[in-house]
């Protein structure tokens, strides 16, 4: 498929040297100066997170405070591991919980959302428009609105205090279906048609033709889903200590006050670094998917 985008091609030059249409040197310098100032503002807190994680305790409580670490050490991380090994529920259990919850939540969401996105993008059937309008409407309000009834419904389904209480609602996020549908729409019909002529059922067309062609979209769904589930402490639904995710356990450490300032700096670093690393790995796929995210009224 000839859909290679500009940003996927390797480039040697960082700046365009050739004369550009409608670009003045004054405008360039103004906008790039603005970019640098705002870039520093955006990056500074992240730089502090990294530096704090590497600061020994005496540098964390230093006056006047310094942004950059002088004697970097991994002391904070080893403190964190000591705290972890002391915990009542073994820390590996928290990690396992997070893997189960985000793993099944992400996989379930991708399967369920793409299965529904395929007919929404490529079939005509009564009710399709209303269904899609409802999904768009659902993107217009946040989950806080439905928090209380969700708790009631989850108790009513009898899945309170199980992994399912976090996994099932996550499968039905509206943004995933929306992005997947928009991306599938640009897959040419001719590709599907040839498979249909060979007598393939719609499920077959979906699994053998459509899914392999929308890989950027499911990577994007995976990233977004991971981002939204990674921060979830599950406090509302999971009461058993053995079921709680890593995020909850890490947050308990940051609540430890001054004595644990070092370990909690390390925690902050871990919490921030993992989603960034995931995004970094899939950036070009995400951007390719977002190119089709537009709303065509």
């Amino acid at each position, binding site marked *: 498929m000839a859909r290679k985008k500009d940003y996927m091609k390797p480039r040697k030059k960082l700046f365009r040297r050739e004369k550009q249409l409608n670009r003045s040197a004054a405008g360039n310098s103004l906008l790039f100066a603005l970019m640098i100032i705002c870039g520093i503002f*955006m990056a500074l*807190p992240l730089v502090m997170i990294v530096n704090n994680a590497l600061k020994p305790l005496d540098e964390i409580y230093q006056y006047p405070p310094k942004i950059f670490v002088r004697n970097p050490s991994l002391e904070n991380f080893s403190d964190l591991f000591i705290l972890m090994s002391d915990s009542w529920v073994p820390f590996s259990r928290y990690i396992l919980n997070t893997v189960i919850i985000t793993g099944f939540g992400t996989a379930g969401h991708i399967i369920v959302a793409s299965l529904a996105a395929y007919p929404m993008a490529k079939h005509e059937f009564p009710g399709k428009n209303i269904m899609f309008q409802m999904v768009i409407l659902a993107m217009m309000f*946040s989950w806080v609105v439905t928090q209380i*009834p969700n708790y009631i419904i989850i108790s009513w389904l009898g899945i309170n205090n199980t992994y399912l209480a976090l996994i099932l609602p996550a499968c039905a996020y509206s943004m995933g279906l929306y992005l997947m549908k928009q991306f599938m729409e640009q897959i040419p019909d001719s590709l599907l048609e040839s498979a249909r002529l060979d007598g393939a059922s719609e499920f077959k067309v979906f699994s053998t033709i459509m899914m392999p062609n929308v890989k950027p979209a499911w990577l994007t769904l995976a990233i977004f889903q991971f981002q939204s589930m990674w921060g979830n402490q599950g406090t509302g639904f999971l009461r058993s200590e053995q079921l709680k995710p890593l995020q909850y356990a890490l947050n308990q450490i940051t609540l430890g006050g001054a004595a644990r300032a070092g370990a909690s700096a390390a925690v902050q670093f871990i919490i921030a670094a993992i*989603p960034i690393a995931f995004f970094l790995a899939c950036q070009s796929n995400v951007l390719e998917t977002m190119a089709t995210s*537009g*709303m065509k009224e």
Partner: protein
Amino acid sequence: MATSNEEILASVRKNSTLGKRMAKSKASYIMCAPYFILFFLFTVLPVLTSIVLSFTYFNMLEAPTFIGWDNYIKLFLDDDIFMVSLKNTLILAVITGPVSYMLCLLFAWIINEFKGKLRAFLTLIFYAPSICGQAYLIWNVILTGDRYGYLNGFLLRWGIIDNAILWMKTEKYVLPILIVVQLWLSLGTGFLSFIAGLQTVDKSLYEAAAMDGVKNRWQELWYVTLPAMKPQLMFGAVMQITSSFSIADVSIALAGNPSVNYSGATIVTHLMDYGQTRFEMGYASAIAVILFLLMVGSNKLIQKLLRRVGE
């Protein structure tokens, strides 16, 4: 006898009733079913339940009792804290919503001038704060009220202030600081959509526009780029509006809940107070319904305005 194509089509339409068309689309419905069953259970049903509960008194222990409009009357006439939180939410939304939207667009537009690795790096710098979970807790360290806080430390050293300021415990600083932190966090999905959308604008449009007399980058932006990426603009607006109305976690983490004299209270913190602390579910549902109407209403309004871009 049907001779032309249109007549055949018309007769086919006549013969295919809704029921027949639905029966023919069986495969489509089966594929949609798993998603929409879950969507109904965890999105549609909760919204409807909220609306019903908002007309009741319900404390999770006894069965809900119907009390008519009482919750709404109490909200708007008796609940001073709700009025403060409504005011704060509107201030936060009216400032962070449009400003963050403009910033997303501006930075995406500038980043679009760069190529390759540098572009990927810049995208990451601006996007990262919105994805790293609770990274905003670092602002607690920056804003610490004693002289060990970064902000106080620097201001003291440069002689701008004489005494350390308790930033998040001083009413007049709370909202402005929340706005700054929220803006820092707000270059999210909409921003990515803009960056990607700018890439899809047809390059030949720019050349054609230059021939037609577009003289500088600002005119180019208004007459060519923005109209071409209108679908992304719509999508970005939904993302920014929704998140600017749901500010709560940041406020609770930095200012506490309740915050000093409710200076950081928002509709969502008020909702959490009644829903999770006081278990007055009927009242909390009324707050949720108001929030729902605010979010959906402003989304619809902005969508209307955005259709006019470049006209």
